[in-house]
């Protein structure tokens, strides 16, 4: 199904109903709040609010949840600019020049440019998503089990390279995630694996308890007892308009950030975070006055903020066209779609045009809503930042419990969430990344199924994975990534991935 006027009409007809408009608006507002509050990332936000979508149809549910996802990218900048604390990890770079601008009395302009950049990047990325996803899905229709298995292996290896930190540790987290994903009934033979008589584990370990435990609970555990007092700069409403020069200086960074962000977003890994680093570095290199960076350069806000929004929407391309999540947040979105009986993949756009085009149309409107609402409501969001953390974290814990319990009405899931919370907390302490683990859990059933099918097809010959050209290409890419990841270990040098890890830690 190609991009056509009829498809767009279908999408807008789907979204332009009072109910879906309301869900889009709600998603954007909740997403902004989730982004504003440090410690509540979009992943925890989506997981916690997943149960609220159970009564909705699939289209409304995905409109609401996607709104939270891209809305969080808008919200993250507010905290970065006004407090020098990234509301979520993708806003780390905005802290530098955004906060410096705020100290100089230009907080309003920084917020406005951030919102305008986010809007432009978000909207242009939806255009990219709209044009790229359908042909990619059509191309993927020709994939057999070997190609699919190699694609997923390649995706996981690329993720472990792009996530930052030690590639050996990341690969071991993927293996651990795949192992956890094997718990439950084997879909090909019906055997119970590693369930130790617990019937509730028959369906396997769910993505939501794993993700909420590893990201939500472990965050609460790691930040427990953190200081409560925060300095918040409150911008005046009349200062929200940027000057002509600031607008002019932002056009280039917004354009470059959009293209960069969208392209990086398609690649597995912490794309929305990496894109901001690349964008900031690019703007600094291209600037005639690089010494202004760090002192309140508007380009240092416009570029990264556009890039993280574009990346978050670029990540939807492989998710919707191939059914391959590129990070933990798309993985939870995938789980949410599956809860509603939809399996993203090459057939998704063809078989569920209303959901796909409805989502596309909702993103056009959602980005506009965010632009129009975010600036006037900035005062409310600033007040949200004044809620003491000692009140906030028990509330987050409550929402985590409800969110996890409600998926299957199962206390075993709440138990899994607690165990994953401890595991995530310990893994953080020991410098392990948890995103590859979540992806391993999500992708295990598909990888194992396609792996075993491919071997059955080839009468047990592993060479099938390299004899089929597309599969071979994916495996070559995976090998290159492994070798690149091992390079700093062998040469004992630091590369950009270590700097990324440091920045993520500081966030």
């Amino acid at each position: 199904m190609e991009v056509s006027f009829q498809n767009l009409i279908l999408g807008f007809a789907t979204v332009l109903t009072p109910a879906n408009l309301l869900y889009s608006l709600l998603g954007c507002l909740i997403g902004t709040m989730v982004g504003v509050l440090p410690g509540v990332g979009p992943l925890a936000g989506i997981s916690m609010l997943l149960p609220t979508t159970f009564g909705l149809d699939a289209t409304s549910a995905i409109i609401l949840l996607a709104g939270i996802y891209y809305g969080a990218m808008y919200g993250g900048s507010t905290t970065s600019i006004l407090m020098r604390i990234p509301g979520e990890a993708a806003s780390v770079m905005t802290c530098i020049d955004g906060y410096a601008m705020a100290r100089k009395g230009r907080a309003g302009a920084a917020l406005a440019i951030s919102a305008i950049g986010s809007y432009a990047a978000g909207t242009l990325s939806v255009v990219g998503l709209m044009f790229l996803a359908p042909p990619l899905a059509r191309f993927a229709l020709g994939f057999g089990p070997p190609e699919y298995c190699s694609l997923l292996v390649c995706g996981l290896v690329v993720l472990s390279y792009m996530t930052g930190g030690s590639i050996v540790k990341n690969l071991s987290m993927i293996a651990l995630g795949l192992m956890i994903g094997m718990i439950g009934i084997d879909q090909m033979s019906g055997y119970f694996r590693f369930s130790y008589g617990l019937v509730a584990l028959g369906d396997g370990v769910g993505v939501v308890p794993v993700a909420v435990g590893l990201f939500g609970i472990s965050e609460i555990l790691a930040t427990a007892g953190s200081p409560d007092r925060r300095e918040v700069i409150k911008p005046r409403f009349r200062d929200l308009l940027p000057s002509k020069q600031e607008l002019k200086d932002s056009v280039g960074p917004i354009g470059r950030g959009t293209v960069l962000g969208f392209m990086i977003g398609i690649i597995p890994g912490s794309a929305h975070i990496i894109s901001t680093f690349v964008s900031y570095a690019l703007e600094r290199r291209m600037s005639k006055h690089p010494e202004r960076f760090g002192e309140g350069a508007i380009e240092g806000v416009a570029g990264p903020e556009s890039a993280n929004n574009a990346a978050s929407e670029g990540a939807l391309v492989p998710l919707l066209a191939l059914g391959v999540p590129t990070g933990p947040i798309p993985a939870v979105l995938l789980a949410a779609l599956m809860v509603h009986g939809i399996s993203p993949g090459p057939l998704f756009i063809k078989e569920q045009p209303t959901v796909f085009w409805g989502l596309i149309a909702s993103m056009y409107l959602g980005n506009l809503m965010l632009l129009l609402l975010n600036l006037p409501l900035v005062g409310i969001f600033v007040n949200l930042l004044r809620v003491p953390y000692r009140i906030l974290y028990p509330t987050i814990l409550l929402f985590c419990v409800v969110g996890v319990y409600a998926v299957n009405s199962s206390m075993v899931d709440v138990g899994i969430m607690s165990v994953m919370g401890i595991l995530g907390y310990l893994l953080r302490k020991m410098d392990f990344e948890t995103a590859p683990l979540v992806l391993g859990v999500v992708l295990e059933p598909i990888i194992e199924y396609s792996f075993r099918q491919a071997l059955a097809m080839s009468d047990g010959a592993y060479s099938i994975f390299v004899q089929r050209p597309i599969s071979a290409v994916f495996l070559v890419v995976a090998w290159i990534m492994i070798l690149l990841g091992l390079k700093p270990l062998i040469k004992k040098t630091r590369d950009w991935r270590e700097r990324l890890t440091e920045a993520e830690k500081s966030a």
Partner: protein
Amino acid sequence: MTIDRLSGAFLVLLGLFVVWERRVLPLGTSHHPGPGYAPLLLAILLIFFGVILIAGGKGSPRLRSISWPEAPQAAAILACCIFTTLLMEEIGYRLTMFLVLGFLFGVMERMKIWLVLTLAIGFSLGSFWLFDSLLRVPLPRGGWNF
């Protein structure tokens, strides 16, 4: 002991555990891999990564370098999670959350009693009303139907 060596040893042990536990699952053949085939491959991978971490972990930070300033609060929060897991279906969502929030606000954060009661009652009843009554997400009511 360094962080990488300890985590590597843990991965090796986990891999060996999976190899041991997998023995009850048919391995199958490479023509028709059984339910134990992929777990065995993954266990071998885990052991391999563990050995690499142990071998290359000499220069990694020492275990003693990890600071645990938040550990007492984290342990209390964890205890709340375990309490919720074990008792929520028995005594119901509202009572469990009231007790958990009351403990966190009152004992851990030492807030004033009226504020503790207001927040604990407000959040436990309010969230129940939002999810169970309004959004029709069934939450446990426990033996007392509360």
